[in-house]
């Protein structure tokens, strides 16, 4: 073993606290960094690859057949910003009835309901824009044949399904399954076959590749140029590839900003810890450095020895972080696999290598900078500095502290940070990181909880709807506010239900609701039209912007619908149900994440008959007894009362909660160890002073108090810096996560911190500092006085 190796090995073994701190700090940085970068790559790569292969549409524009001709739409291929276009294709929105499961009677075409899908008329998968991939079977060749988008309805090739409703319903055979990454349609058939289906809503679809489509603004500019070439109001819907990508990646994308933030925090903390540890190691072993140099070590060898003392534990930590990051990534990446079917469940090897190289390079650079002083010192100076007490700073602070009306061990400790300001500053930063992480994770958990409440709309205590008997039932998890059974019978008189609710003691608030399937131009699939007797804000829906409707004709819609129809508040949206077509003015944007169907909330107009009622009881009401009594009152009307359940926590929320908890624990542990390391160095530097104190009569308890007091100010300041930083990060991160998931978040989700909670977090900095200092404080208290006095 070379002399250098021996020096390095003894350094690593002697300084086990510092070695452990560097190992954990690096592990945390690699884990969080790997997850952040790995998932960022995973969330983009599969979509980008599939989109490129299919020559996907940057922009899909749909027109109503009554407003623009196919020729007019075809002419837009020359519009500004358009690089290539395919179409126009006829499209229609039509109800699809899948076959009954084996052993069940066939559905009644007259009354059965199924999803409304967008069917495009195309002669083949295409060779221009949006080259649809046939995953099974073949393309439709004649009327009566249909190609279904795979991943949606699980209907095998060869199955006969019914398209349309009532007298216009026709049976068609599924001859193929296909995938369009651009999501231009739910199913395809030939143009002639589409015409023969007589869909209730028809139009044309044109698919564009744009010269510049990297930003939403560029896509919007192209859409406006296209719309300008068409008659006014001809564009009934437009869909950007950015929206499609967001929808495709909504679940995985939500992790990316959060993990990158934790990765950044961990990396910065790691740099800080490595820098502090190595600088501390150099500062406390100047005499040893002097001896090494006197024995013939070159400056470069001395620097290498100290850098290696950091790199060895850092490499071990990086290996641990690599393993942890890859393991944690498996359940997250399985979501991407669900979307594309071909994705590996591991982080790309080049990401592993890149993160590893980046972290270790950073450790090397930081350690080299910190160890540079050891290299620059001459042997004589190093020996001299190692023997001579350091220049005394903080005397003014010590003088002031001595006058404070506090026990002397406390005031001795309070003045201590001013004697070693650089070390104290490093501890402040480490604690600030820990406090910021705790604040961020707590805010994140609260926000996610509120998102779940807003997404599930479970503000009501009870739902009154049609059902067997008046017994109360727990709806299955995930059903949200929708009753487990169907709506009230048509014969139900809403006035009698209202009278029963009014007559019931301890009824709080209630409203009536009727939901129907509808179609909205620009939205693929079914849109749910929910008509209310009153604004449903109290049932859990949260507004992102605008206001609730106050009269019929006004509507509130989710962000997805605004994006898909390229609308904003004040615009109108046309909704077509089986019974009617209504145009609403959009007055509010509601938060409705995770719902891929469209949603339009409005107030029922003249003759409105609700068939479901949502009820909140007065505070302190026995819900079971209330439901029993109400059920008895409504039983003659054929209505049932269902007690609302909150359902289980969403898997995504559980994963983010767990990840946030894990990463926070890692950061807090590393921050605590950073404090421990600094206090160990401080105690080692001051051991002679501690001996003097003890010789003068300082008891072990007083020694413990003095050391703990020496980090009190540091903990407090760290908390006061870290908590606002955590709040600030939360304010940046949450909207970014929302954007990742394609939703705008309401204020109730973003404003989650109360002053009391923040004060507790700030005091948490104190606790973290005390926890980190406790062990070395104990060592100081136990140090034998005679030994301490002999220590130079």
């Amino acid at each position: 073993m070379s002399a250098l190796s021996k020096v390095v090995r003894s350094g690593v073994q002697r300084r086990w606290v510092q070695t452990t701190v560097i190992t954990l700090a690096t592990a945390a940085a690699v884990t969080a960094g790997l997850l952040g970068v790995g998932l960022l790559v995973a969330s983009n790569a599969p979509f980008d690859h599939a989109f490129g292969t299919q020559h996907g549409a940057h922009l899909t524009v749909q027109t109503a057949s009554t407003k623009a001709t196919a020729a007019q739409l075809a002419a837009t291929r020359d519009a500004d910003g358009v690089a290539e276009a395919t179409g126009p294709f006829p499209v229609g929105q039509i109800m699809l009835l899948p076959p009954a499961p084996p052993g069940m009677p066939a559905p009644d075409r007259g009354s059965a309901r199924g999803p409304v899908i967008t069917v495009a008329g195309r002669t083949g998968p295409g060779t221009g824009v949006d080259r649809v991939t046939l995953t099974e079977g073949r393309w439709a060749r004649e009327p009566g044949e249909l190609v279904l988008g795979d991943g949606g309805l699980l209907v095998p090739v060869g199955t006969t399904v019914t398209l349309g409703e009532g007298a216009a319903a026709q049976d068609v055979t599924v001859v193929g399954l296909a995938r369009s990454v651009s999501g231009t349609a739910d199913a395809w058939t030939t143009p002639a076959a589409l015409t023969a289906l007589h869909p209730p809503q028809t139009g044309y679809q044109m698919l564009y590749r744009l010269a510049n489509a990297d930003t939403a603004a560029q896509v919007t500019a192209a859409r406006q140029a296209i719309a300008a070439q068409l008659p006014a109001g001809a564009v009934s819907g437009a869909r950007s590839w950015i929206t499609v990508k967001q929808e495709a990646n909504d679940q995985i994308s939500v992790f990316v900003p959060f993990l990158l933030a934790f990765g950044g925090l961990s990396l910065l903390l790691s740099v800080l810890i490595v820098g502090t540890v190595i600088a501390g190691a150099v500062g406390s072993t100047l005499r040893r450095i002097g001896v090494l140099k006197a024995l013939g070590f070159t400056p470069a060898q001395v620097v290498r020895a100290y850098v290696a003392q950091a790199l060895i534990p850092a490499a071990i930590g990086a290996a641990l972080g690599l393993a942890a990051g890859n393991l944690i990534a498996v359940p997250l990446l399985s979501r991407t696999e669900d979307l594309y079917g071909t994705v590996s469940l591991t982080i790309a090897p080049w990401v592993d290598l890149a993160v590893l190289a980046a972290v270790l390079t950073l450790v090397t650079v930081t350690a080299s900078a910190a160890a540079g002083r050891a290299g620059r010192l001459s042997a004589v100076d190093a020996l001299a500095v190692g023997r001579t007490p350091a220049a005394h700073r903080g005397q003014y602070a010590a003088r002031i502290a001595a006058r404070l009306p506090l026990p002397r061990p406390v005031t001795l400790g309070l003045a201590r940070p001013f004697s070693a300001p650089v070390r104290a500053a490093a501890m402040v930063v480490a604690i600030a990181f820990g406090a910021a992480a705790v604040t961020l994770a707590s805010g994140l958990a609260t926000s996610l909880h509120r998102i779940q409440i807003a997404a599930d709309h479970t503000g009501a205590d009870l739902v009154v709807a049609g059902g067997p008997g008046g017994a109360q039932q727990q709806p299955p998890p995930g059903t949200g506010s929708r009753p487990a059974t169907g709506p009230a019978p048509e014969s139900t008189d809403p006035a009698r239900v209202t009278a029963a609710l009014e007559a019931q003691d301890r009824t709080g608030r209630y409203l009536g609701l009727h939901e129907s399937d509808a179609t909205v131009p620009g939205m693929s699939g079914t849109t749910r039209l929910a008509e209310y007797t009153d604004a449903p804000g109290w049932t859990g829906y949260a507004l992102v912007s605008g206001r609730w409707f106050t009269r019929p004709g006004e509507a509130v819609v989710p962000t997805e619908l605004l994006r898909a129809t390229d609308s904003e508040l004040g615009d109108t949206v046309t909704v077509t149900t089986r019974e009617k077509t209504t145009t609403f003015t959009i007055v509010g944007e509601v938060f409705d994440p995770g719902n891929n169907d469209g949603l339009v909330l409005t107030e029922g107009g003249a003759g409105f008959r609700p068939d479901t009622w949502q009820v909140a009881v007065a505070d302190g009401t026995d819900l079971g007894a209330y439901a029993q009594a109400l059920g008895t009152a409504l039983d003659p009307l054929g209505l049932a009362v269902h007690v609302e359940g909150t359902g289980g926590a969403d898997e995504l929320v559980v994963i983010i909660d767990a990840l946030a908890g894990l990463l926070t624990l890692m950061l807090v542990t590393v921050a605590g160890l950073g404090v421990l390391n600094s206090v160990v160095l401080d105690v080692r530097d001051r051991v002679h002073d501690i001996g003097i104190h003890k010789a003068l009569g300082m008891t072990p308890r007083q020694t413990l108090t003095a050391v703990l007091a020496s980090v009190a100010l540091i903990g407090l300041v760290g908390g006061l810096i870290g908590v606002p930083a955590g709040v600030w990060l939360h304010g940046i991160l949450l909207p970014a996560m929302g954007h990742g998931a394609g939703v705008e978040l309401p204020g109730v989700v973003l404003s989650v911190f109360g002053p009391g909670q923040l004060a507790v977090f700030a005091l948490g900095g104190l606790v973290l500092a005390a926890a980190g200092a406790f062990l070395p404080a104990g060592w100081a208290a136990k140090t034998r006085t005679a030994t301490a006095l002999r220590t130079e």
Partner: protein
Amino acid sequence: MTEALIDLRGVSRRYDSGPPALDDVSLTVAPGEAVAILGPSGSGKSTLLNLIAGLDKPTTGTVTVGGTRIDELGEARAARYRRATIGMVFQFFNLLDDLTVFDNVVLPAQLAGAGRGETTRRATELLRGLGIDRHARAYPGRLSGGERQRVAVARALMNRPALLLADEPTGALDTASGAEVRRLLTELHADGQTIVLVTHDRTLAQECATRTIEVVDGRIAADSALAPLR
């Protein structure tokens, strides 16, 4: 017969597997005595002082000071014992460089929880008595060696200890400063202060001590109160 202030019986102190630092030492010191412990380096005299101060514990034997078995005390009670009974003066002063002279002197009283007014009065009186009151707000690093040692003596006397222990109090001083400290210790003894000092300095022993004990290889080789033992 006056009860002994210090009573060591059969005290040995052994570190690791080497020869004992102290080997079966017994001695008593009466109140008001000034005892100088002499001996070459490594003879065990500082170990003896540390045992009396409660900074170290004997491997065997008993150490009783002021009627209290020091060798049986835990760390906390030993600290309280030092506060109440012992004042210590070290060769290299052991002043805290980040505290002013005044703050160094009052520290033992503050650790004992004494009142601010009483502490200030006592410190002022000591600093004036030792002729260093003009340095009260200065830091030790700016004082001469003799002045620093006087500050150390003031600090040692702050809690009015029954016993003053001094470990080579003139060892780090020039001749003039050494003479100052010798004079100071003599005056203290004249005022009735019990003193045990460890020194190489025979002049110091002759001037300040009423009794000398010579330690060689961990054993008491001579005790002037008992006549030579060899």
